[in-house]
């Protein structure tokens, strides 16, 4: 579903991403681990066509991103570290707007409410302006947007950073249920615990290179941390 072939991004002589090869199948959750500046966000930006690849290509659903910027985005949903919403609009109005922009006009108000409810927004919060929302609530609206979009692939950029453990755990549950329905997930994260919990695969990134990849079934949490440190500082 998500595919990178020799994907490279240069800023001058600086290699932000160095020949990344990656393939994420439906139902897989691939967690990119690595220090800040290792190339995780760059990878996501390339899949979103927010930046132009220096060489190689990113593909979504078999389509090259750079050549089909609008078509490939139909299959994608993106949740950033901070889901930003329109503060003067309510949660429902935000969801309505974002789903309409994603060309899903088919939902009734009730269905939209259900998306928010299932993402964990309480009924009384749905009609409140999002300027009163906590970060966790905004991330949940982000999930609702992604679910309503019926995306086949999810791009997550440190979506749980700064969330309290409960919100973070709820987020993981939602992610699991989405991957259970066959969504391919690429998640950049610092959270080794979350990666182990929700990921099917992990990859370590260092200075733009994917230096190791594992399936989480093979490893325990303690091992993951050991391996991470080994790769990062070794």
């Amino acid at each position, binding site marked *: 579903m998500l595919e990178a072939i020799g994907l490279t991004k240069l800023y001058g002589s600086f290699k932000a991403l160095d020949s990344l090869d990656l393939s994420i199948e439906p139902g897989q959750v691939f967690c990119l681990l690595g220090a800040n500046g290792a190339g995780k966000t760059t990878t996501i930006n390339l899949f979103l066509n*927010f930046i132009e690849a220096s060489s190689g290509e990113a593909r979504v659903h078999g389509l090259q991103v750079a050549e089909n910027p609008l*078509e490939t985005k139909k299959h*994608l949903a*993106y949740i950033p570290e901070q889901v930003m919403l*329109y503060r*003067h609009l309510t949660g429902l109005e935000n969801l309505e*707007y*974002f789903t309409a*922009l994603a060309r899903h006009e088919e939902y009734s108000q009730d269905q939209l409410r259900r998306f928010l409810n299932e993402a964990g927004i309480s009924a009384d919060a749905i009609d409140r302006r999002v300027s009163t929302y906590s970060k966790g609530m905004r991330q949940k609206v982000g999930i609702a947007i992604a679910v309503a979009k019926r995306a086949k692939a999810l791009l997550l950029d440190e979506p749980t950073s700064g969330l309290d453990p409960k919100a973070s755990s709820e987020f993981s549950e939602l992610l699991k249920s989405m991957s259970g329905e066959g969504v391919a997930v690429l998640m950049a994260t610092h959270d080794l615990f979350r990666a182990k919990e929700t990921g099917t695969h992990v990859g370590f990134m260092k200075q733009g290179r994917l230096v190791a990849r594992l399936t989480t079934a093979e490893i325990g949490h303690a091992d993951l941390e050991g391996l991470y440190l080994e790769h990062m500082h070794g």
Partner: protein
Amino acid sequence: MVVRIARKELLEMTRDGRFRVAGGVVALLLLIALGLGWHRHSNVTAAHEIAIAQEREIWESQGEKSPHSAAHYGVYAFKPTGRLAFFDPGTEAYTGVTVWLEAHKQNQFLYRPALDGNTLQRFGELTAAAVLQLLLPLLIILLAFSAFAGERESGTLRQVLSLGVRRSDLAVGKALGVVGALALLLVPAVMLGAAALTAARADSPSGGLVRTLFLAGAYLLYLGAFVGVTLAVSVRARSARFALVALLGFWVFVCLAAPRAATDLAKALYPTPSVQEFAAALAEEKETGIGGVDYDDFLEARKQELLAEYGVDDVEALPINYAGWRFQVSEEYGNQFFDRHYARLWDQFEAQDGFRQKIGFAAPLLAVRSLSMSLAGSDFAHFRRFAEQAEQYRRRLVAFLNDDMRDHAGAGFSYRRDQGLWSKAPAFAYDAPDPVWAVSGQSTALAALVLWLVLSAVLARSAAARLEVS
């Protein structure tokens, strides 16, 4: 899609307190300006109606006197202020709307409120036109400076673009959102204005409806250009703050600096004498002989022609009244001189207006201002048309009186006429120009506005196509 985006923009604006206050203030000022304009317009119109009604009566009941004395008695002519002048009074406060028509002289216009104005009025009067020309652009900037820059800063732009929204849709949607917000403010004002127009007394320069539609079109072009420029800057600016500063700079240039600079430049390039200098120049030429021809020589030449025509040697032997004939000769001697002096002066004023229209290519305010005054019938071109017709009428009237004396007074010096003649004298009827005439002098301004709109739309579109997410 586009409508969806526009609706969301509009919803956000109506919920944002800052926009509500700014919009409310502008709407209030617009209503006040319309009210003031209405008040001023109905006062002037009522005064005119009374004056026009009485003027003929006063003329006809001036009593027994010689026709030439009646020519000296004179009449007043009043420029009808168009209905739309309540929206844009243009230069009428400076040029005046009333002129005294008498024998021998082409007079300057009277009733120039600007003469009685206080210094505060130099900053400009609160007119509906000024609100549309100066404050609405400012409001557009406030509504739209953050359209892209703000969304980029807050991060919503990344999310919106991740959905696969076309950048051009986003730009058009946002533009429509601003237009919608303006419409919300303007529709009540426009309706009020339309009601006032239909209720307004006094004949407008003909084609009131067509003029109103043209006027609306001109302002749409102007305000549309501001929407385009604002969005283009918002796309390109590094931050919302930078966008705001840049756009305010643009506003100061277009709405404050350029008009003043254009007026000063126009005066420097096409200098016009002051009222005193103009009068002094008239007096001086009269002294030295008009066009280098002394009046006595002029009269002598015409007298020889007259004597030859009647085949007599002496004016005593003429079958006509010589004094009446001579009055008319003196009139014709003076007319060529007034024609020349006033044409020179008015050509300069027109050149200044033309120059200001050209500056419209740099600052669209000058273009819309020129078009607006012209369509409201309150610009210099309309003034000149009226003044020239009034002057032609003066000459017809004076000639009518002098000719009566020439043909009927015989050799008598105690020739008297009364209401019988005064009521046969031609009355002044202003042939008001149609809207096409008004616009025909405004092609430069119109071209400037169209160019601004097209250019700003292209600019906004091409900027949006290259919209960066961060």
